[in-house]
């Protein structure tokens, strides 16, 4: 069971966690007269799965291009693991890029190379000898569930399989940061879900920082721990996913939530508490209600390879949240 940490909204720097995986400060990016990103500041916690959500043209892909070193901002700072990405020499930048994996909406696989050769490509650029890079590529393909597909060309793979190759290719160099820009937007819902759970599993197994760019709230809901909402190149809201979904502060967030209705609204005077449960069945719901807590948001997740549900409770202020959670804990674990 996990008790929620304070909301990590950028406007409250005191709440920022200690280990900074990725730090963006005052990033501005213009294209001619158009400002794609304006004074963008965001802290992405190490080991988080952070969703970046916004409407079309909000600046999400621009942000990904800056993070992956494909483009440079006009001003601002960009730190990854304490390293300033904007003061690197071109050679250092290329090395740095090998430690950042990028997954694309349209896969961007090389049509004339087999799955194995595609996955081995980043290692080939890095000068890794053929035998070694192919062994590594084979292992990585196995990790994304594609053993036996090594010699297929992209044209012989389904969309989901192509994206798995894309993910393996992004992972083969052992990155600390994985960026997925609309990685499931070209896939059907079922395949999307399997790709999202693959990304979630990999993020956990490898303990890397994952950034998932999307315009779909469902993606944020099912796969992220944190979320940042972009609108017209500006950050309008960020924090833990459950909190933001349960209690959206900005009109854009609410609009993006659109079809997605929170299970319940947080009532005035209630505080929000997060906990992890093995399942959200009728019995659990009953117990929660009996204790005075109300489920306002729930989100399936995978923790340690097991299916769990992240639950956000609205707890009336007169109840001690700690006591409520304390009472619930043993029972919750019984269920597990």
């Amino acid at each position, binding site marked *: 069971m996990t008790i929620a940490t304070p909301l990590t909204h950028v406007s409250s720097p005191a709440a920022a966690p200690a280990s900074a995986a990725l730090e963006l400060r005052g990033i501005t990016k213009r294209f001619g007269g158009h400002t794609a990103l304006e004074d963008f500041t965001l802290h992405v916690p190490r080991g988080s799965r952070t969703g970046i959500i916004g409407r079309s043209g909000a600046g999400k892909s621009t942000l990904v291009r800056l993070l*992956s*070193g*494909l483009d440079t901002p006009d001003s601002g700072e960009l730190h990854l693991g304490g390293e300033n990405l904007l003061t690197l020499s071109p050679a250092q*930048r*290329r*090395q*740095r*890029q*090998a430690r*950042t994996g*990028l997954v*694309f909406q*349209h896969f*961007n*696989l*090389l*049509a*004339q*190379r087999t799955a194995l050769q595609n996955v081995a*490509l*980043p290692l*080939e*650029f*890095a000068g890794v000898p053929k035998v070694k890079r192919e062994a590594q590529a084979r292992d990585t393909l196995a990790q994304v569930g594609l053993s036996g597909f090594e010699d297929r*060309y*992209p*044209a012989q793979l389904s969309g989901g399989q192509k994206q798995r190759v894309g993910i393996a*290719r992004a992972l083969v*160099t052992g990155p600390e940061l994985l960026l997925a820009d609309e990685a499931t937007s070209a896939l059907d819902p079922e395949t999307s879900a399997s790709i999202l759970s693959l990304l979630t599993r990999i993020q956990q197994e490898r303990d890397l920082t994952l950034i998932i760019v999307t315009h779909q709230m469902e993606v944020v809901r099912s796969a992220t721990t944190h979320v940042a909402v972009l609108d017209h190149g500006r950050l309008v809201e960020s924090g833990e996913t459950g909190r933001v979904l349960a209690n959206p502060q900005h009109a854009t967030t609410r609009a993006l939530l659109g079809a997605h209705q929170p299970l319940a609204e947080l009532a005035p005077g209630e505080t929000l508490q997060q906990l992890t449960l093995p399942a959200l069945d009728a019995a659990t719901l009953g117990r929660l209600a009996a204790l005075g807590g109300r489920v306002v948001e729930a989100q399936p997740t995978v923790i340690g390879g097991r299916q769990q549900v992240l639950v956000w409770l609205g707890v009336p202020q007169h109840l001690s949240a700690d006591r409520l959670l304390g009472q619930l804990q043993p029972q919750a674990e019984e269920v597990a």
Partner: protein
Amino acid sequence: MTLDPTVWPLLWKATLETLWMVLPSALLGQLLGTALGVWLTLTRPGGLTPNPALFRVLDAVVNIGRSFPFIILMIVLIPLTRLLVGTSIGSTAAIVPLTVAAVPFLARLVEGSLREVPAGVTEAARAMGATTSQIVTKVLLPEALPGLLHAFTVLVISLLGYSAVAGAIGAGGLGDLAIRYGYHRFDTATMTVTVAVLLLLVQLVQWLGDRAEHRADHR
């Protein structure tokens, strides 16, 4: 219409002359034309290493090279041919103008095939930390291979046509034979056979080219 049997050795010799003109210039043209095509692709606006001034120059050179009628090109290039080969007459001498004609022709075709490689693929390579030369050798050229093979086929066939023009002004080959017998001596039989051999060559090149292209295409 009867065929003079003494024509067969002539026909054989002319075929060899044609191949001797066409194949080296096709290979040289492919090599230099690919290089020029890559250069155009890199320097064009939005390319990997944009250089508008250089691009305009290269682009103009290619256009000028392509707009020259081959027969004029041969005449214009006589001094260069003399310098390189020692003479401006004969099959070997024809290799010079044929190559010069081949380079811009092929550069355009290569540029077209390279442009078909999706921008996202190049971008993915850049995001992996590839250098520009790695992108050219490991991404652009291999991904464009079917198009490059197609370009080579078109080039060889065009050079077969150009070589007939070269033949008309003393380079020998099948074109020369067809013109000498058919046009100057009204020997329709010999001309027909010669043209048939030329046609067969074109068919063979096209067939081989299509096959190679098909085998190389995994898209």
